[in-house]
């Protein structure tokens, strides 16, 4: 095979009101063919109302080696959660 055909990431919205969600990837020469292939590959049983395709090369991802320094600091910030605050019972649901 001569030239490698570009890779695309596929995002599907199951129905209006929900966000597009990543569901897989595929190869296609351009965005028109990528959309057609995504329809055939990922929506054979009514899984979607809308499709996004994005060139995989266009995605920037965080480094898994830095996962600890990126995400651990949020764990000890318990004051970001509602349960951190004490409210008397008589106030009821808040």
């Amino acid at each position, binding site marked *: *095979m001569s030239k*490698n055909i570009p890779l695309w990431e596929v995002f599907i919205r199951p129905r209006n009101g929900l966000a597009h969600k990543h569901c897989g990837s*595929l190869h296609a020469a351009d965005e028109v063919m990528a959309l057609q292939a995504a329809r*055939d590959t990922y929506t054979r*049983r009514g899984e979607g109302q809308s499709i996004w395709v994005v060139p995989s090369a266009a995605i920037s*991802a965080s480094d898994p080696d830095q996962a600890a320094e990126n995400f651990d600091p949020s764990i000890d910030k318990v004051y970001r959660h509602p349960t951190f605050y004490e409210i008397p019972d008589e106030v009821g649901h808040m």
Partner: protein
Amino acid sequence: MYSQGLIGSDSSTDETVEFLAAFQARIDAEEKIEPNDAMPEGYRRTLIRQIGQHAHSEIIGMQPEGNWITRAPSLRRKAALLAKVQDEGGHGLYLYSAAETLGVSREDLTDQLLDGRAKYSSIFNYPTLSWADIGTVGWLVDGAAIMNQIPLCRCSFGPYARAMIRVCKEESFHQRQGYEILLTLCKGSAAQKEMAQESLNRWWWPVLMMFGPSDGESVHSDQNTKWGIKRFSNDALRQKFIDATIPQAKVLGIEVPDPDLKWDDSLNDGRGGYVHGPIDWDEFWRVVKGHGAMNRDRIRNYKKTVDDGAWVREAAMAHAEKRAARKLAMAAE
């Protein structure tokens, strides 16, 4: 699966003890490994091989069933078979995508299949000679595949597990449509029922071989179990499959061609199960090594498809480049 254990994989690693221990700890904690995570080379190689083999099986598996699309006995059967074969193509694509996240290209995977470096399930090297075979393949081959694939939904490698969840959702239609074909034949004329029995006679043993060699002889099982790629032994899955299948054969009113088959109360921790006769592993290895009835046809047909489609892919790329250049020129104006 169709991925029947790993044929010729090399799972040796030479990373430091600390690195391997840390990785093992993640697996033991049932953490999923994602594509960009650090992983032992052996883990990566094993998965590329297994997922690639699995994908090839889906793609090659389209041939024995595709063989009957034009001859399906009714429009209902034809529509169902077309949908099933299209699904198998889809399964191949999900799996190729999962393998590619490990750093192998689709082109490489295809080349490995075509030049024989990569295997696919030996079951697809058997011919589909009668319409009943389409029923048997759906019932037994897809049935065995489901047995193998359900535990893979919990595989430690995230993209493989996610692909398997999708595949498993689609497989149950495959097995049911096959069983329904056989049910219709078995309720039909004596000749139709005989066609179903004859088909079962030919497929039963090759289907049992789909689970791979007995555990004593399977070299890679231990490491793959430790790495959370394999959850059950080949023999355990085969036993599960037989126990599930025999009652289904009884409903059809046909019999598996095993004179030694008998119920044993002591199997499955006292819940009972079927003991089966000896499997002809020489036949299995013969077919794996390329001497089954259809090995050459399968690869020749696939190569022809790849070659015949080359101009389409080249034209699509040329067209895409032209459009991109035009867009760029317009933006510059």
